[in-house]
């Protein structure tokens, strides 16, 4: 039976920080983050399989495969895979297949959660507040934004990394299933929806230029000021956003919707329907 191998603290840190710095440096259509994931695993592979060239090569090869994950939650898979490689190197019964299927199996759900709540909730909130303050020319704002993003992202990534490394895949999946985490996500969903709702009002700007002539001499009736602004300010912005949402939900690519908006913008602007 092989001796028990434990990665050193410094190797673990090297792996984590390599991931942090280069996770998408060679982003490509063939294997996406494959090369960079290998990059992040390299210090561990070198330590664990230094004395076994076959395993070394196999390990290198199995981490140079198609891989694509959201960056912060991705820390968790990295930690977990490091723990599995440790066990394998120590002679425990961890097959190549097991490692591979963990990677591909977690990729989807973790990216889903990560993209939705990092890019979908946390980024927009930070950036929206930042923009709202920034337009007034407060130069402290971008600096605070940088700090906040760094602390939050590296913090979550590290937390996930430790969780994956120390507690294993069940811990990661349990986390996703746990009541607390679900509450966190629902809460983030509510928070996100409210903030996005406010953003619709504050950031989307759609106004109609349609006016109804009221006869000679009388001021024409403006649909915007006479109807929408009195009844529900921002109504058109809300409608435009829900239209985009509906199209995206129906499966339109965002580029396609973007083109539609451009067309609407040009036509609307030229005809005076939008102003």
């Amino acid at each position, binding site marked *: 039976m092989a001796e028990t191998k434990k990665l050193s603290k410094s190797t673990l840190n090297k792996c984590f920080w390599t991931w942090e710095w280069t996770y998408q440096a060679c982003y490509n259509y063939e294997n996406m983050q494959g090369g960079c994931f290998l990059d992040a695993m390299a210090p561990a592979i070198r330590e664990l399989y230094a004395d076994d060239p076959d395993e070394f090569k196999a390990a290198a090869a199995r981490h140079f495969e198609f891989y694509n994950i959201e960056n912060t939650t991705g820390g968790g898979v990295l930690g977990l895979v490091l723990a599995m490689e440790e066990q394998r190197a120590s002679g425990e019964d961890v097959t190549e297949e097991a490692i591979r299927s963990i990677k591909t199996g977690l990729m989807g759900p973790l990216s889903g959660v990560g993209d939705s709540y990092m890019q979908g909730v946390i980024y927009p909130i930070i950036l929206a507040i930042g923009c709202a303050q920034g337009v007034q020319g407060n130069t402290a704002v971008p600096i605070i934004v940088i700090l906040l993003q760094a602390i939050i992202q590296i913090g979550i990534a590290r937390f996930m990394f430790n969780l994956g490394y120390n507690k294993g895949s069940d811990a990661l999946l349990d986390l996703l299933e746990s009541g607390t985490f679900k509450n966190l996500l629902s809460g983030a969903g509510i928070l996100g929806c*409210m903030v996005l709702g406010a953003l619709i009002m504050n950031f989307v700007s759609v106004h109609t230029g349609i006016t109804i002539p009221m006869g000679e001499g009388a001021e024409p009736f403006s649909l915007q000021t006479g109807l929408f602004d009195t009844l529900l300010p921002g109504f058109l912005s809300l409608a435009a956003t829900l239209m985009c949402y509906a199209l995206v939900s129906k499966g339109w690519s965002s580029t396609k919707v973007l083109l539609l908006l451009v067309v609407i913008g040009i036509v609307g602007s030229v005809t005076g329907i939008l102003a």
Partner: protein
Amino acid sequence: MSLFQAFLCGLLYFLAQSNVTMVSYGTIYRPLVNGFLVGCILGDPVKGVQIGATINMMFIGFISAGGSLPSDIPMAGILGTALAISAGLEIDAALALAVPLGLLGAFTWVGRLTVDSFFNPLTERLIEKNDGLKGLWLPTVVIPQIFLFCITCIPVTIAAYFGSQVVGDFLGSVAFLIPIMSVIGGLMPALGIGITLKFIFQGETRVFLFLGFLLAAYTELDMIGIGLISLITAIIYIQLTSKIEGAE
């Protein structure tokens, strides 16, 4: 704008696109931040942050999931701010400039994803050689980043340098486009928010979109205030629902 300043802008665009550090995508990738940095380069950080923030609003909620990206956000932020400051444009005109720049789409993005694939065989060869993965960082970091530098820093440097000399005249001759750009710019956040909603707008949380909208429409609360009120609302709602689930 001096050539050196233009180069710094190009470098900034490279850094924004490099994805070196996972934090960059949430920071210098964003016009709020890179607009500010362009402002620092050109000696007017206040105007930089103002223009950057304005441009950033257009792209609020734009998400990249699974490697897709609908527009070139840092291009709009960096070139938009740089040209606007150097040509002394009003914020409105700056926005009108940034719209088409963002619309240029994800050319850089698609280009690198395509070309980077060609560096994979180098990595494979290293694995085959099985020599301790020596020099792994060349095909996985150095070479792709040099390539990226070429397709990002150089064109933006040129655009910033020469653009600043022509953008004023140009905008003058296509002034009729400005209101159109402004309408498009006003519509764009609808897409970003719509994309984001796809992920979180479901079931019981839907009603809160409208609550947030009404808060913004009917009160004087700024975004921080709304963010905090939203947080409190979310906590209270979750306290209640988790109590209900506990009671089950």
